[in-house]
């Protein structure tokens, strides 16, 4: 007995696919309709560039949070990108297939660990280490960077490996035949050919780092402050929304939605850059 025909299956699949896109559209519509009026009312300049965030007295400047998000994300890149790329090169060019089969799924398992667990480890292990050895409150920009750097590793490693493995075998053979060593081949030929994929992996990692909330709330201390050093406590854009949403009413609530608008725009830009980079990689093949 046939319940649905070929056409029926096609329609059901199409509706399912469209529901994913429509939920994205609904989210965008909702955030923008709640947040944009506030930005116009309060003034984009005042909102984006003022230093003071004090909802009780009507000050809604998110510049410290933008700077904190930027620093946390860059710091996470400094920690995560070299580790991730080096790991990807080792696994794809040097490691035996058996090691690859064991290590790659293990790294991907990192992505499955809930962020609250990373945050917990950050609070319990990392923060005391920073406080006792380097000073400051421990819950700091540095703690945030290290935790996020580890959290983006799976993204950076798996996409980098895929793009390195996508480099045709003939490139490597050509280079080796000319007398180059494995390392010379890797950094002069393979990495260059896989460059756009590696760039995409870093940008997707950036997107993940800037959007991460729970772990950052737990380890970064959350004071509204432009950091002067890596040991200062910071509050990111995401943390600001999550911390204050449950209590916010009126203007305060609209300001949090406006923070969401800014975050949404930043992530959209990053993802577009990443997809352009990935498309370039595919075009070259």
């Amino acid at each position: 007995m046939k319940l649905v025909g070929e056409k029926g299956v096609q329609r059901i699949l199409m509706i399912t696919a469209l529901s994913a896109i429509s939920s994205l559209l609904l989210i965008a519509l909702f955030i923008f309709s709640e947040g944009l009026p506030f930005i116009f009312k309060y003034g984009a300049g005042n909102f984006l560039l003022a230093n003071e965030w004090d909802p009780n007295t009507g000050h809604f400047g998110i510049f410290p949070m933008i700077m904190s998000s930027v620093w946390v994300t860059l710091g996470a890149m400094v920690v995560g990108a070299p580790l991730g790329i080096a790991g990807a090169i080792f696994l794809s060019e040097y490691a035996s297939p058996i090691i690859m089969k064991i290590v790659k799924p293990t790294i991907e398992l990192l992505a499955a660990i809930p962020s609250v667990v990373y945050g917990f480890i950050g609070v319990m292990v990392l923060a005391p280490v920073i406080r006792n050895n380097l000073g400051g409150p421990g819950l700091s920009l540095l703690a945030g960077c290290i935790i996020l750097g580890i959290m983006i590793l799976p993204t950076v490693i798996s996409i980098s490996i895929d793009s390195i493995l996508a480099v045709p075998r003939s490139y490597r053979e050509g280079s080796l035949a000319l007398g180059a060593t494995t390392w010379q081949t890797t950094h002069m030929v393979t990495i260059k050919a896989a460059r756009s994929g590696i760039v995409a992996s870093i940008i997707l990692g950036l997107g993940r780092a800037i959007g991460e909330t729970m772990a950052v709330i737990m380890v970064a201390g959350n004071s509204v402050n432009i950091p002067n050093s890596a040991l200062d406590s910071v509050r990111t854009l995401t943390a600001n929304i999550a911390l204050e949403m449950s209590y916010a009413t009126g203007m305060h609530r609209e300001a949090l939605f406006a923070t969401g608008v800014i975050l949404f725009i930043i992530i959209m830009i990053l993802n577009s850059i990443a997809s352009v980079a990935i498309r370039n990689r595919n075009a070259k093949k």
Partner: protein
Amino acid sequence: MFKRVFILGMLLLAGIYMTGCGRGKTSITLAGSTAFQPFAEKLAEQFMTKNPNVNVTVQGGGSAVGIQSASSGAAQIGMADLVTLPEEAKGLTSTVVAKDGIAIVVSPKNKVNNLTTDQVRDIFNGKIVNWKEVGGDDVPITVVSREAGSGTRSSFEQILTNITLKKDALIQDSNGTIRETVANDANSVGYLSHGLINEKIKAIKIDDVECTSEMIIA
């Protein structure tokens, strides 16, 4: 030790309605203060065993949400933990149901046992930055506070008066995380609801007044 009160903003019987699918069961919703929520849940259980045809739902959300939902009718009873009720709560009937103390807490390793109100204000304002200024070791003070909008924070600021929280104070979003942060950092100071003090943290005397249940009631 500072005092504050729990206030229930009530919309009396008129607000209690019959739910369509409840088969004649009356339903009451409480919403608001997370500090009072555990007590409200206990009270609701007791009430429901005595009145089996009434269904009581307790929701959190914070003091502001409590007042908002009582005003809008989303909840029949709103819960708020504040020293004084804000403007929005004018139209509601309020009843004081409990009193709570806000304790200033430090790590048990801290030598300081007593502070004056002025010293507490200066620490949270950022004028006093080292424990040696108030009789402790020569280490910097890490101030831990609640987020803007928290009932505990607004009570704390109302009681102390003239407080502008220093910029680099750590912000934690619940009484529980304040407790963990203070317990883990020997140099930190925070404030939380008296009922949540345990052996991992030390409540200090304010103007020589100890934080005990007797003192809160007095």
